[in-house]
């Protein structure tokens, strides 16, 4: 198993105000952001990413917009810095919200540039983006996935075409001369990742052989991974664990108490992340017809991400660390505890080869973050590397 450290580079000093106003995103005015404090925080977070390279962890960066929960507003900007500060770590962009980007060819250029800069260490996530990203981008939610797939196809064609220029006259995007310089170092493209929570996403990722990642939710991961494996079988190949990624908050300590304390602080991400002004949580067309009918039937209540092992919803905003461990949202405790929890979930969902380690969140300070990263790399990572250490299986089969 590979482990990818990430942090959303939060601006937690504004969270209390955001919670009082009922939204940490979209409508929370940026007068609540102090750029001087932000300067300190961004540089601190980048130092923590750089540390991962020294201890043998891979690195993941994501982006959000108009929010106090995540101050990474551009994956390529952050990864450009991290690429220069690291030598060994693979660099996962997870990712670019391509249905919210007006210019897919620009995305292809930036990703190719990062791949060249990093010496072929890039892994490239092309993601749908969360519902509350629609408002900052002002992208149309009603045809989001049609736009997603057109951008996806165009980006991969732009990155893998070497005898351009070519033209593109699609439903959403129009170019007469696509011929990106530089082209990526990894041919034909860096490995492609998708994210999601649904069985449908699992099937669509399998049809392309992409890595598929899911977030914080044991109850979603199992069915999605199973759908992927089944679809791969139907198409005549076997999906290995390297095709699957699972994201969770991780807190490890010398003792169980210390690890839980760290996870509990980092888990404020899980508790604050869904606090968004209601109109931005479900833009029309973003969720399926069936999901919307179910919401209306339930009087407007939405199902949360976090469910316990029996599938019952857990209130994400108030969940205890015990509930979050039970739901597979957090791995927390001593190195033995954390390994055992990861192994159990791994076995539950039929195996996954990538752990996306939310190793810093909110009020987990620099000293604790450094200790969390260092101890995890020393005590847990070597044992996880032994877990499903099979060779890559799908990249070739999907050709």
């Amino acid at each position: 198993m590979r482990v990818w450290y990430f942090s959303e580079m939060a601006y937690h000093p504004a969270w209390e105000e955001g919670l009082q106003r009922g939204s940490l995103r979209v409508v929370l005015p940026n007068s609540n952001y102090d750029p001087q404090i932000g300067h300190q925080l961004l540089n601190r977070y980048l130092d923590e990413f750089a540390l991962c390279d020294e201890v043998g962890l891979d690195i993941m960066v994501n982006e959000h917009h108009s929010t106090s929960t995540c101050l990474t507003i551009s994956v390529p900007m952050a990864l450009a810095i991290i690429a220069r500060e690291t030598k060994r770590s693979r660099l996962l962009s997870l990712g670019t919200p391509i249905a919210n980007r007006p210019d897919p060819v620009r995305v292809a250029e930036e990703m190719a540039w990062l791949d060249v800069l990093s010496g072929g260490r890039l892994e490239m996530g092309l993601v749908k983006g969360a519902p509350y990203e629609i408002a900052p981008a002002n992208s149309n939610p009603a045809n989001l996935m049609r736009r997603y797939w057109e951008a996806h196809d165009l980006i991969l064609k732009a990155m893998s075409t070497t005898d351009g220029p070519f033209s593109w006259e699609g439903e959403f995007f129009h170019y007469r001369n696509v011929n990106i310089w530089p082209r990526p170092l990894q041919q034909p493209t860096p490995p492609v990742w998708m994210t999601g929570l649904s069985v449908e996403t699992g099937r669509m990722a399998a049809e392309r052989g992409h890595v598929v990642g899911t977030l914080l939710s044991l109850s979603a991961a199992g069915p999605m991974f199973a759908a992927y494996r089944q679809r791969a079988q139907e198409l005549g190949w076997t999906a290995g664990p390297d095709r699957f990624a699972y994201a969770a908050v991780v807190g490890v300590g010398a003792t169980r108490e210390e690890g839980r304390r760290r996870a509990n602080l980092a888990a404020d991400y899980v508790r604050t992340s869904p606090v968004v002004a209601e109109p931005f949580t479900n833009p029309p067309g973003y969720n399926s017809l069936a999901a919307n009918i179910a919401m209306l039937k339930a009087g407007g209540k939405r199902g949360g991400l976090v469910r316990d092992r029996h599938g019952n919803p857990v209130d994400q905003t108030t969940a205890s660390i015990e509930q979050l461990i039970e739901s597979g949202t957090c791995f927390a405790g001593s190195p033995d505890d954390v390994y055992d929890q990861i192994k159990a979930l791994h076995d539950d969902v039929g195996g996954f080869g990538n752990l996306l380690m939310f190793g810093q969140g909110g009020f987990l300070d620099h000293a604790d973050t450094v200790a969390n990263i260092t101890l995890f790399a020393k005590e847990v990572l070597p044992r996880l590397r032994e877990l499903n250490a099979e060779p890559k299986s799908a990249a070739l089969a999907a050709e």
Partner: protein
Amino acid sequence: MVDDLAYVYLDLAAELGLDDAVLVGTCFGGWVAAEIMVRSTTRFSRLVLVDPLGVKFAGRDERDITDMHALTRAEYLKLAWADPAKGEIDFTALPESELAAIVRGREAFALYGWKPYMHNPRLKRWLHRIDRPTLLLWGAEDRIVTPDYGENWRRAIPNARLELIAGAGHFPHWEQPEAFVDKLAAFVEGNG
């Protein structure tokens, strides 16, 4: 694009053999009706627009049309109805087929009107082509699109009149149906 809808309805009017018909559109339907009439008025004798969306009059820093997608349902009802209680719907009591229609309707509303928000920037310059008597019926308490916005419509269409309906918001045909029908009938009969 909304012009696709305009052509669909023009084809339908031809298919039905309409002649001297009165075209009525409310809210988003008012936008569609205006898009139809700037293309062809031949099958229609009169136009009625009820609190229509679809045109941008103000400057780039001002909204003509309230951002309905940035409001909670309760906030929306306060702006869209003179009496918000009348707009309440118990969705939990509706059959699944009706809920599906509501969800699909919301999707279509976003598909056509997300950006630019609920208007066609080119429509204003063609409103002069509407060469039929036009009645703009407006809920006096509409705060999705206000009567001032209705006044801008009146000025942009050559032979148009604006009439307000008291005690009504964005949906006067639902909120004050009798007053609505009276004004509509008077206009259609040529007395209004």
